[in-house]
């Protein structure tokens, strides 16, 4: 069938600058660039271009640029080019539209409507270059109070905690959805910086065992790679109920991506589809979740925190409260902008709620119920920079999860084609030719640099607020003001509008 879908991008090559070195030809897994021997020219097949910029970045003479196809449809507020093109695609394939990464629609980004406070005169700001500035964070269940004996010795037994040097962890991304080199990069960065990475539902590859002390091992609905050794390998266990990018649906790693390594790590036969069901088939209610939480705690002899990850949905605060009461050590809330290796476009773009609102309402709800202090709260799914981290913590999070930001640090250009497995940056692929493009030495450095850079910025901002330990920002919503938000939004976020005093 002839496609009506015109290419999204156009490759522009400066013929004077092009030296026919063919780096672009070799580097494009989508086979956009082809060398024509007869004319001694490199030509481009625009329709295959996903706009990942691999060729642009590697072209030694900077001869290539890629622009959006300027081809316009007749202007129509209702029928945007994207709406029309989506219909063409579906008319041609008869299938669900698939995409990668997070929701890119123009919903409000609340992070950008929040402003941070700073000290002036009555309270000195603190210079992080000269004064200590503490970001250490503990994730895990906390007793309501401590008890000591007559000699001042601690009697209370503290449940297992994850000790973070920065309040930022790498969110779950499975080996399978991302490459082993991407996993290794994040794992090594976690070790270097003193935070944690998350296996996702991909099992723990033997190459990653050296970094297991810094791993959170996930147990999701497919139970891939889960056995007692796996559960005991990590420092915490995360039960994944939902994912922000695709709340309510499961996952699907196509058989062609299940090579020998993935097969061994996930403990499934080579070439079989790895299907994570939408629900856990042993969790049909909150008491079932409680059973799983305690089954896992039992499996690790109560030595590791067991957390629960959920997608931010309408009733998230009540669900979170239930999870807290079910005995989880932490709750991870994944917002609707959270990324994914593959999701149906319609679900990604329309299901779930912004994590900022989810976080504010969960924190408030847990406080109302007197539970907040007992359970840790992690949020993810849209954290782009250190200011987002600060805002999340001020709204009430203990720590944040980052995934898209981490991948961008590794080289991701947000081309949203993860689901094709042809990631030119060696991230979302299992093709050994592509995987090796991500040098884990470089990846680990880039990822740890990102965390270090954010830490510096967080310290600067904390210092500006006159705070020298991150815990004093946690839930300190007085440090935030809203701009351009309506009464209801301010109420849910629990903050005042900019211009209102203390």
């Amino acid at each position: 069938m002839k496609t009506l879908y015109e290419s999204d991008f156009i490759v522009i090559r400066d013929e004077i600058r092009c030296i026919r070195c063919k780096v672009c030809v070799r580097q494009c897994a989508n086979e956009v660039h082809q060398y024509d021997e007869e004319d001694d020219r490199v030509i481009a097949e625009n329709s295959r271009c996903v706009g990942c910029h691999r060729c642009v970045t590697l072209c030694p003479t900077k001869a290539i640029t890629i622009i959006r196809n300027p081809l316009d449809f007749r202007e129509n507020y209702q029928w945007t080019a994207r709406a029309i093109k989506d219909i063409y695609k579906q008319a041609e394939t008869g299938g669900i539209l698939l995409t990668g990464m997070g929701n890119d629609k123009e919903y409000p980004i609340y992070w950008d409507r929040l402003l941070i406070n700073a000290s002036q005169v009555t309270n000195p700001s603190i210079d992080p270059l000269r004064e200590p500035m503490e970001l250490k964070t503990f994730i895990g269940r906390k007793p309501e109070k401590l008890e000591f004996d007559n000699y001042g010795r601690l009697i209370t037994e503290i449940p297992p905690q994850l000790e973070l040097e920065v309040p930022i962890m790498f969110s779950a991304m499975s080996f399978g959805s991302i490459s082993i080199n991407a996993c290794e990069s994040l794992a090594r960065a976690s070790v270097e910086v003193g935070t944690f990475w998350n296996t996702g539902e991909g099992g723990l590859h033997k190459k990653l065992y050296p970094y297991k002390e810094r791993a959170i091992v996930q147990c999701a609905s497919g139970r891939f790679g889960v056995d007692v050794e796996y559960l005991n390998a990590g420092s915490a266990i995360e039960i994944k109920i939902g994912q922000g990018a695709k709340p309510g649906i499961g996952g699907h790693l196509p058989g062609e991506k299940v090579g020998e390594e993935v097969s061994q790590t996930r403990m499934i036969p080579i070439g079989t589809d790895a299907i994570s069901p939408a629900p856990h088939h042993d969790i049909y209610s909150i008491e079932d979740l409680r059973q799983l939480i305690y089954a896992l705690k039992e499996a690790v002899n109560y030595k590791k925190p067991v957390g629960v990850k959920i997608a931010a949905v309408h009733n998230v605060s009540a669900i979170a409260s239930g999870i807290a009461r079910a005995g989880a050590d932490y709750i991870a809330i994944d917002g609707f902008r959270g990324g994914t290796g593959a999701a149906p476009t319609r679900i990604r773009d329309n299901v779930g709620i912004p994590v900022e609102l989810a976080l504010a309402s969960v924190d408030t709800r847990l406080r109302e119920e007197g539970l907040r202090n007992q359970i840790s709260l992690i949020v993810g799914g849209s954290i782009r920079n250190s200011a987002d981290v600060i805002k999340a913590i001020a709204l009430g999070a203990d720590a944040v999860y980052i995934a898209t930001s981490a991948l961008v640090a590794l080289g991701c250009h947000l081309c949203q084609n993860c689901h094709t497995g042809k990631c030119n940056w060696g991230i979302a692929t299992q093709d050994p030719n592509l995987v090796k493009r991500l040098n884990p030495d470089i990846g680990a450095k880039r990822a740890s640099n990102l965390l270090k850079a954010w830490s510096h910025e967080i310290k600067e901002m904390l210092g500006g607020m006159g705070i020298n330990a991150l815990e004093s920002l946690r839930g300190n919503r007085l440090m935030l003001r809203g701009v351009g938000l309506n009464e209801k939004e301010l109420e849910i976020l629990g903050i005042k509008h900019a211009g209102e005093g203390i």
Partner: protein
Amino acid sequence: MELKTKKRIYPKEDVCIGCHLCEIYCILAHSGTRDLIKAFKKLDKPSPRVLVEEKDGYYITFALQCRHCDDPLCIKACITGAMHRDENTGYIICDEERCVGCWSCILVCPYGAIRRSEDGKAVSKCDLCIEKGNPVCVENCPNEALELKELEDLA
């Protein structure tokens, strides 16, 4: 008098992406210009002194330059004395003026790291960019798949 190379480049095949940029920058470095476009338009464009090994249907690639051996057979086999060890750096350098193109060095180099120049007149081999200081292949590898190691214990 015992002289060995002070530096050597080691390839990392696990992360070589087969882009051939090492070759491209090697050409530039030995072209006598500082501009890639100019270098490639030159009629006497030099041939690269680094070789990217690749094989159809096989995912491993790596780039190989002269190993600047401690026991260099190329020097011993050279019929003109063109192939010699630089006294300051210990690098093995071919004096292209003196080379007559007998290719005895190619016959004995166990690494296949010596090539014939584009015009077939003389040997073209890695000089570790002796004039520039640092090898451009290492500096321009986008994935750090080439590692320049400084070697200790030089006699």
